[in-house]
């Protein structure tokens, strides 16, 4: 009798076991609704206003050297903007480091236009009342890679070393919460409040670290770049703030972007 009862419980547990797997296959209805919402909003994305502003800034003679950014080399030769964003982060010999798009724009603003890093890094992120120039510029540059395949290069030894650094940062646990990027983005089916979190270690999901950025956030109506996103993830982990346009951020972006290689980039996005 007793034996049969135990068997019955085991059978009940066995019947319940497939349940977590079954939910993983059903798309989250909340997420599906947000996807629909985003699709509608993407048709008239206010990010295009920042794209226009960025293009104007790209061509304008500005800074102490009164120069435009049209001679800025984004990796495909001076002045070539088309497709450059989809091929970054990459190694730049003149700076002897791997740079993501915004870091490269900042580099050009310093070397070509004569701005100082201190001035650009003072308030580098968008607020309700102010959108920093590099944010508009990176939105313009990103838009010129709309519909192109992401292919962050890994041919230079420094590009491969930077990828490994980024990977190490991604898995590095520290801080008051003993957190790492991987705590939230290293396994499947995690979420924060109602938002499912992608697993960036998988190529199919890593694209979500790149897609939609730079993004116009409807809450507050501000344009944000990946530099901001990385900075804010560090803040959420209670890590020390990474330097603006630093090698740390470029390395993390190199890791995420290379993982997403091969996917088609849809251009600046919209966030709720």
């Amino acid at each position, binding site marked *: 009798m007793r034996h049969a009862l135990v068997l019955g419980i085991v059978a009940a547990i066995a019947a319940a076991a497939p349940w977590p797997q079954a939910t993983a296959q059903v798309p989250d209805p909340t997420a599906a609704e947000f996807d629909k919402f985003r699709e509608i909003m993407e048709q*008239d994305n*206010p990010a295009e206003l920042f794209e*226009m502003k960025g293009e104007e800034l790209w061509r304008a003679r500005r800074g102490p050297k009164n120069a435009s950014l049209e001679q800025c080399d984004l990796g495909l030769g001076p002045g070539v903007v088309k497709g450059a964003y989809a091929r970054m982060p990459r190694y730049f010999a003149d700076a002897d480091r791997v740079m993501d798009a915004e870091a490269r724009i900042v580099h050009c603003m310093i070397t070509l236009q004569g701005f100082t890093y201190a001035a650009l890094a003072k308030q580098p992120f968008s607020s309700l*009342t102010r959108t920093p120039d590099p944010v508009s510029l990176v939105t313009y540059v990103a838009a010129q890679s709309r519909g192109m395949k992401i292919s962050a290069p890994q041919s230079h030894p420094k590009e491969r070393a930077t990828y490994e650094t980024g990977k190490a940062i991604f898995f590095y646990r520290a801080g008051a919460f003993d957190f790492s990027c991987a705590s939230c983005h290293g396994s499947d089916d995690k979420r924060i409040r109602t938002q499912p979190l992608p697993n960036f270690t998988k190529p199919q999901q890593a694209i979500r670290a790149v897609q939609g950025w730079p993004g116009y956030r409807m809450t507050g*109506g501000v344009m944000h770049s990946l530099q901001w996103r990385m900075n804010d993830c560090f803040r959420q982990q209670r890590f020390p703030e990474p330097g603006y346009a630093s090698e740390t951020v470029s390395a993390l972006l190199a890791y995420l972007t290379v993982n997403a290689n091969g996917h088609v980039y849809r251009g600046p996005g919209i966030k709720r």
Partner: protein
Amino acid sequence: MAEPMKIRATLQGDVADVRVLMAHPMETGQRKDAAGKLVPLHFIQTITAQLNGKTVFAADMSQAVSRNPVFAFKVKGAKAGDKLSITWQDNTGDKRTDELVIRAAP
């Protein structure tokens, strides 16, 4: 001060589907800044659309519209080559007009 708009017009027969993105802070007058002071009311009051100089759409707006708003409307009797001009004016008297020549459907 006023930033340019982004205007799109798609022809379907003789109906133009017009979509306008406007860069504007659209302050409601209810928000307080970091110092606790009220941010003054600042919003688009009127929008006018003209097709070849003739007003085809006019709207009075309230402050209950988001930042960087999008407006979409349809204009009957439009054809390729028509000049569409959109003007907004806000409560501070600031104004902006942008134009677009409607192109034939691809």
